[in-house]
């Protein structure tokens, strides 16, 4: 949606595949004029840049499936949280000697062209390949290259970030409603306040602490409110959130490396089922990821 809105890519030049044709996103894509198929292989064959947008545990199986069709020209872009470049290259190298792999982490506001995207290039991806991706992703927001080992942290911050913002906005709106505002107006004003603040920060040389001070007149309303936020440990909650998301991403990576989903479950091709049976329910250690391992192992 972002690419077509930005005009960098015509819908008919985009192919998407999914086993489940009943997903609401599928009909949305079709309406946009995107070519839709149930065959992953067809998608690969008709693309130069291939975005892998499946859930992380599925990636290894997808790579096995489409591996034979990957050619030197393909740029394989994985958006899967926690899936490393080396794991993808390893899987693909059995089919293609020098697969071009780029790992990418973006976020949902690409829909409104205000995404935050980072990418890391793999062993065989050229500078131009990275730049091509950057050009594409920059059309839908901010995009920059990073070292791969930072991607988990990016996930924690800007990957999950919109969810933190939505939560904050919901609560801010509640505050507004409590103090007498109609809900719609409260939501609108809250969102605009955050949008405006973010814009000020991005366009300013100043530190956010300084910008905060600029809003706080002595003894005024804002500083009183901020004191409440501080008392509640607002800052530490946000730090905790970014940390938790980053750590969870690493766990998912670890689980993906274990490849604990049974091929049978994949073949049933219902992502819901996979979600239910996903080892993500149990996170303490690899040995506890038990659903598909030897039953004699203790949990």
């Amino acid at each position, binding site marked *: 949606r972002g690419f077509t809105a930005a005009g960098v890519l015509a819908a008919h030049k985009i192919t998407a595949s999914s086993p489940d044709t009943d997903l609401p996103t599928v009909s949305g894509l079709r309406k946009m004029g995107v070519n839709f198929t149930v065959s992953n292989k067809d998608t690969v064959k008709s693309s130069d840049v291939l975005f892998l947008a499946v859930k992380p545990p599925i990636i290894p199986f997808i790579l096995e499936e489409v591996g034979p069709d990957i050619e030197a020209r393909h740029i394989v872009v994985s958006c899967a949280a926690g899936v490393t470049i080396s794991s993808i290259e390893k899987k693909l190298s059995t089919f293609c000697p020098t697969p071009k792999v780029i790992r990418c982490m973006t976020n949902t506001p690409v829909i409104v062209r205000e995404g935050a995207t980072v990418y890391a290039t793999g062993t065989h991806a050229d500078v131009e390949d990275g730049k091509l991706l950057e050009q594409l992703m920059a059309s839908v927001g901010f995009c920059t290259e990073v070292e791969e080992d930072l991607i988990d942290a990016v996930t924690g911050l800007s990957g999950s970030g919109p969810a933190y913002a939505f939560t904050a906005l919901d609560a801010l709106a509640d505050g507004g409603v409590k103090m007498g505002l109609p809900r719609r107006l409260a939501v609108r004003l809250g969102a605009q306040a955050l949008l405006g603040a973010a814009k000020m920060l991005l366009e300013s040389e100043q530190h956010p602490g300084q910008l905060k001070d600029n809003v706080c007149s002595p003894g005024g309303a804002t500083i009183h409110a901020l004191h409440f936020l501080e008392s509640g440990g607002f800052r*530490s909650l946000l730090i905790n959130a970014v940390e938790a998301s980053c750590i969870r991403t690493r766990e998912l990576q670890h689980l993906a490396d274990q490849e604990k989903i049974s091929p049978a479950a994949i073949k049933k091709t219902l992502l819901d089922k996979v979600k239910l049976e996903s080892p993500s329910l149990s996170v303490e250690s690899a040995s506890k990821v038990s659903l598909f391992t030897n039953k004699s192992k203790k949990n």
Partner: protein
Amino acid sequence: GAWPRGAMEASELWVGFVGAGRMAGGLVRGLLQAGKVPASNVLASAPSNKNLDAWRELGCRTTHCNLEVVQRSTLVFLATKPHILPGVLEEIRPAVGAHHIVVSLVAGVTIQTLQRLLPPWTKVLRIMPNLPCVVQAGAMVFSRGSNAGDEEAALLQSLLSSCGLCEEVPESYIDIHTGLSGSGVAYVYLFAEALAEGAVKMGMPGALASRIAAQTLLGAAKMLLETGEHPAKLRGDVCTPGGTTIYALHQLEKGALRATVMDAVEAATNRACDMAKD
């Protein structure tokens, strides 16, 4: 009698202190260290010799008579305990003249009260210092009463800059200054102690830890004052990604340190206001 204007020169100034406690002692040490006033020009009064011995050691003159201090000084600092002040003012009132500059250090006593208890022509100023005036690193704010003019304010500022930061403010800021900096010094001592304790827990000897803690605070404060940068920016400069500092700061944020400190400043300020009302 009236003094010629030339006598406003600090070096020719006769400075008196009614009350010779810790705060007054801090101020006079600062003044003397900076060479603003010769010790022999300083006269201090106190009921007992307990504090006065230290003043004599500095070279100051001492007395037990408050009236004498007023009679022999131009610049008179009032440094008694709050509940004693009204009685003292009544005592010295007869000797207070138009040439006098009366500066009150007394916590919680407003300019309004001072002016009420002194002759109507009196030049009154109110100052709130803090303890590090003793080492010439104090933070002081002062306000002027109705008859105190630019000259008196300038004199006070010039004299007391020798003790640290000295700024004129509206009187309403004085209680806030108490909460921030008067009492604030104690918050810093607490923080220094805790820092050192952390280090001791991790295996460093206490004396060394304490010296380093103090130097850390000194250094950080110096950078703040000299760079003029926002503390948040300086904090960010110290935090390398994934490094030790950000881990530690996270702990501080978890403990809601910021809010606690704000609470402390608020509590002390409110207490100062309440005490002033008593």
